[in-house]
């Protein structure tokens, strides 16, 4: 595992938060995913050794929680809320707009490698539906026009790189 020094020090710190090391499984997975971009296969054994548990204990956690992924995704992660309040306000159309903008389908990396678009369940911001989480940032009232605007912004930022 080739983790950044900052990630390693955060890992050592977070383990001290719990009287039982196994509790740090989710925090370690988050830290590794933030560093690497996904959970590489060798992370299971690495975390297991670090927390003195079995690799299967780590694997079963990765496969249970929707936020952990075992494969790389696009540079930006677009999560569109699918649940009722957002759907009532047009969430499905919002998602479709993003898919069209990047010529891709939900759950896939777009051909330019720029985004992965996903439907997720309730993001707890139903009063400003439809909502979209792009990486760490929540965007509210994202109708098709705003989705296009956000997509243009992502494309413009990609060009600068």
């Amino acid at each position, binding site marked *: 595992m080739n983790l950044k020094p900052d990630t390693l020090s955060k890992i050592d710190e977070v383990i001290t938060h719990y009287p039982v090391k196994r509790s740090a499984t989710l925090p370690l997975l988050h830290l590794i995913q933030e560093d690497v971009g996904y959970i590489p296969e060798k992370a299971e054994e690495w975390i297991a050794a670090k927390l003195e548990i079995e690799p299967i204990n780590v694997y079963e956690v990765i496969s249970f929680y929707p936020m952990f992924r075992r494969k790389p995704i696009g540079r930006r992660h677009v999560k569109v809320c699918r649940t009722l309040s957002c759907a009532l306000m047009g969430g499905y159309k919002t998602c479709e707009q993003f898919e069209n903008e990047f010529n891709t389908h939900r759950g896939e990396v777009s051909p330019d490698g720029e985004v992965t678009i996903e439907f997720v369940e*309730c993001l707890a911001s139903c*009063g400003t539906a439809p909502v979209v989480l792009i990486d760490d940032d929540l965007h509210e009232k994202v109708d098709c026009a705003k989705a296009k605007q956000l997509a243009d912004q992502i494309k413009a930022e990609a060009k600068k790189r």
Partner: protein
Amino acid sequence: MAAPAQRRIIFQHIDEAGYTNDLACYQKHGGYEVLKKSVTRKPEELIDEVKKSGLRGRGGAGFPCGVKWGLVDRKSGKPIYLIVNADESEPGTFKDRYIMHQDPHQLIEGTMISCFANNVKQAYIYIRGEMPHGARILEKAIAEARAAGFVGKNILGTNYSCDIFVHRGAGAYICGEETGLIESLEGKRANPRIKPPYFPAVLGLYQCPTIVNNVETLCHVKYIIEHGGAEFAKIGTPGNTGTRIYCVSGHVQRPGYFEFECGKITMGQLLNDVCGGPLPGRKFKAVIPGGSSAKIMRFGERYKGKRKVGAEMVDYDWAVEDVPMDFDSLGMIGTMGGSGGVIVMDDTVNMVEALANINAFYSHESCGQCTPCREGSLWMKKITTRMVHGAARAEDAALLKSVADQIPGRTICAFGEACSWPTQSFIAKFGDEFKNYHETKQAPKSTAAQPLV
């Protein structure tokens, strides 16, 4: 009758211009003064205030907070843990988000008062994974509070020590169920535990006595200790004390969050006066009053029965609009106040399609350990999705009902009920729409109708 004015005690500073989420601003508004007074009082006294207040948990079940604290095993000699349930994920609910992002110190103060009252050794805030900024804000706020002596070792110079750590979830709804949350905090799959024997108050986190309280509940505790349990009990109605934050979403003119005295506002006042009524040219059709698992209410139906007012039993005959928004009234008419998430649907919505959306949610979120829930939620999703996107049949309504009826009471946790109530209530209230769907779906749709699944 016009709606009463909002009474903002928890959301007092939410969206206030110039109010920031740092310690200095919180203290400028009297922050941590209640904690300072609390640590000079006897812990039992504080628990008594909460019992007197009648405060009911704001996470969904409405269980009395004082009773919950009273059940904690204090004789085992094991450390006591407190977990803040900040895994806000019941569809339609969006109140804790604003407390954590805009007023985190209110939550931290309420948490520390509750910890001191219960001699808690360590507290964790379990925040849902999809709120990374919220987690960072809380971590920063805890660090500020720790540096100021409000959290950590020897709080405010006393012998009492207790720290708070933030723990992030990873996208699983079931972590909102308290025993699932505990499993998750232990680093496992969030499979809920069976009760008995695993009541958190006795065998919770690391098999130690554990209190799990919702974010809003703990903020109420701060208010109760500040003003006294008796004063708090004067707010709202008997048995439904304090304020409630109603989160309104869906088809209204002004969705949002509104804090009212519990039971002092009706559904009609909330939706028409406060939220501005239906969208132009539309009519209300149905409303889910307490998060997506709460049973649906149909506009036009009436609820009749007897209820207790003071010492007397009186008849009631309510339209949807007349129902007071408290735990007991909503329970009496066969639904629930739940988490306060009110989801409104107007006449552009087809109920088969709305149910298909909800079923997809529950099927995705079932943890999978109990067969009736794992399979039942999946079947209900498959049937309703097929009805919308494939061939619908008149007999599907009965089939759906039979699947839903076989789940509740046969599972380890209340998810079994939560996933079957939507199907049961949609079919009970809108049975014709399900039976006729194979015909109505052929007709051209209103241009205003949104795809829901």
